[in-house]
């Protein structure tokens, strides 16, 4: 069995680095860097949002887009995600839904003013244990998201789903 760890934890490394900078440049820079790190932790949800919901331009991965993309974006372990939407538009356009290109939609959510081109992947009849088999549905949709610090951190599949049911 050849196993090499995929991603080393960077936090210890970062702390050591910070201590060194603190010694060299004093408290001022330390505070700035600490603030950057804190923002970094807030941005973690934005990273998750991008990993799960942003694919622009739409990846050219052959005829089984959903099966390939759901695995590549880490949404099939340990349990298959049953529904997931990929948005095919720029980060700027998606982020703007948190600002002037979106409107409040209740429950702290925001709905886009324009329709986005999306692909919604829905699991077929398999169980939720991998391998996961999906079917894809591409269409223009209004998106409903939640924002923190002006960045999207949550995609509301429930809303997309309701629209699909209505149409």
């Amino acid at each position, binding site marked *: *069995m*050849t*196993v*090499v*760890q*995929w*991603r080393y*934890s960077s936090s210890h490394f970062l702390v050591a680095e910070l201590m060194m900078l603190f010694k060299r440049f004093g408290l001022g820079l330390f505070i700035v860097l600490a603030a950057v790190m804190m923002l970094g932790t*807030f941005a973690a*949800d934005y*990273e*998750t949002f*991008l*990993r*799960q919901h942003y694919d622009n331009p739409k990846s050219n991965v*052959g*005829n*089984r887009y959903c*099966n*390939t993309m759901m*695995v*590549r*974006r*880490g*949404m099939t*372990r*340990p*349990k298959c*995600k*049953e*529904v*997931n939407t990929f948005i095919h538009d720029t980060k700027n356009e998606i982020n703007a839904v948190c600002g002037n290109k979106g409107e409040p939609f209740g*429950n*702290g*959510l925001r709905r886009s003013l324009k329709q986005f081109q999306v692909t919604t992947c829905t699991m*077929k*009849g398999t*169980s*939720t244990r991998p391998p996961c088999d999906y079917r894809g549905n591409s269409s223009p949709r209004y998106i409903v998201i*939640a924002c*923190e610090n002006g960045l999207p*951190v*949550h*995609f*509301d*599949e*429930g809303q997309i*789903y309701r629209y699909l049911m209505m149409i």
Partner: protein
Amino acid sequence: MTVLFRTLKSCLALPRVAWAFPRAAGRALRSWGFPEGLEASKMELDIQCQEFDASKWKELVSTLNQHKTIRLDDCGLGVSHCEDLSSLLSTSQALTELNLSNNELGDSGVDVLCKGLLNPNCNLQKLWLRNCNLTKACCENLRSVLKSKSSLTELHLGDNSLGTLGGKALCQGLMDPNCQLQSLQLQYCELTKENIEALSSVLLTKSSLQTLNLSNNKLGDAAVKHLCQALLDGPCNLQSLQLESCDITHASCKDLSAVLSNKPSLIEFCIGENRIGDAGIAILCQGVQNPNCKIEKLWLWECNITAPGCKELAKVIGTKETLKEISLLGNALTDEGMEFLCQGLKDPKTKLESLWLRDCDLTAACCKSISSALSVNSVLKELQMSGNCIGDEGVIDICEGVRSPNCKLESLWLGQSSLTAVCCEALAKVIVEKPSLLELDVSYSHIGDEGVFKLCEAVKNPNCNLKYLILYDTYWTSQADKELKALEGLKPEFQVVT
């Protein structure tokens, strides 16, 4: 062990995308430790979604001969990589499993691999080439492999446009007395009804085949009837038959029913995504009810089943003692249908362990019956109710049944059910009071921080044995996030899946 290894990731390679894997992979590695004591013959390599530059590939190739199984799934491999793998096949007698699915090998890549496969040194048993951009052109060489390689027991060729001609070439290989193939996977291969004639000849003469997957090929009723006849007349002891999305209607059901009642070897039967309807299901159920039928898994998702079909299925659920799993996902069963199914679940003879009911048009109105069925049923382990508008009220009712001492549920899926924080108190009670519960899914809900806090509090309870709390696309603020993250440190076996 295989399952464990599948969760571990090898990383000699460059990540295909920066976010290819969830952190869980790393965690699994740390908590389970590194199996250093394994002999070379038992070694497994499992890499997914990573690309190799020339030097990393060279480095990897130099280690490949020590592995018994190699999985390089979606690794950006092409013809040049096949040259190295082909030499490996012709030299490494230890290699028994090779999975190269989701790589653009193309016909020329597979032709190169076949050279290695045809070498007498090669002892490969299982070969995966799913979604490798193959056409009929490589099937000639694969036919030769099937004819000469009696070690080969599994061949996975799904998601390749092999077409009628490709399928025919493969069947010629299968007909050879040398061929001992047990599992053939040909889903999404653009096979047609013309392929069934050749396949039927195989089934009439050979007995080795145990698993046959022909899903997502436009076969139609006439071809399926032909196939069933061959299964009935031949020596074949098929264990798993998969005919999902094959344009089957109720017209094939009599023949399929005859297979069910005459083939006690058959334990898995998947015909999802076919317009079978209630009349068709009634005929299939007759086959299942035959004492000769030993079916364990019935996959009947998106089969146009409604309430009358459930009446028949309830009898099967209640009395068929071999039946362990049934999927009725995507059928408009409605509350009326669910009432019937609950009768089956209440039958003391039922042995059903898994019931899949996602998107079945259920509402809160049927949840009291589900609850009372759960309170007398001690065999059901998995209940998947996602995508039904049962709401908080429905979930509260279901939780009542789960809390009953009889209920031994291990996995409960309630995503996309219009849930809010209101149902979380009931869910929290289940988490604390039901030590059998290992998986709880509340994805796509609006439980918010309030709901998350309640669930976290319950997970902290020492009685809670929950392994996975599944919360895909569910929103909470960073405050609730801290609570969730703290849980993972508190209970190493517990994981929030987002």
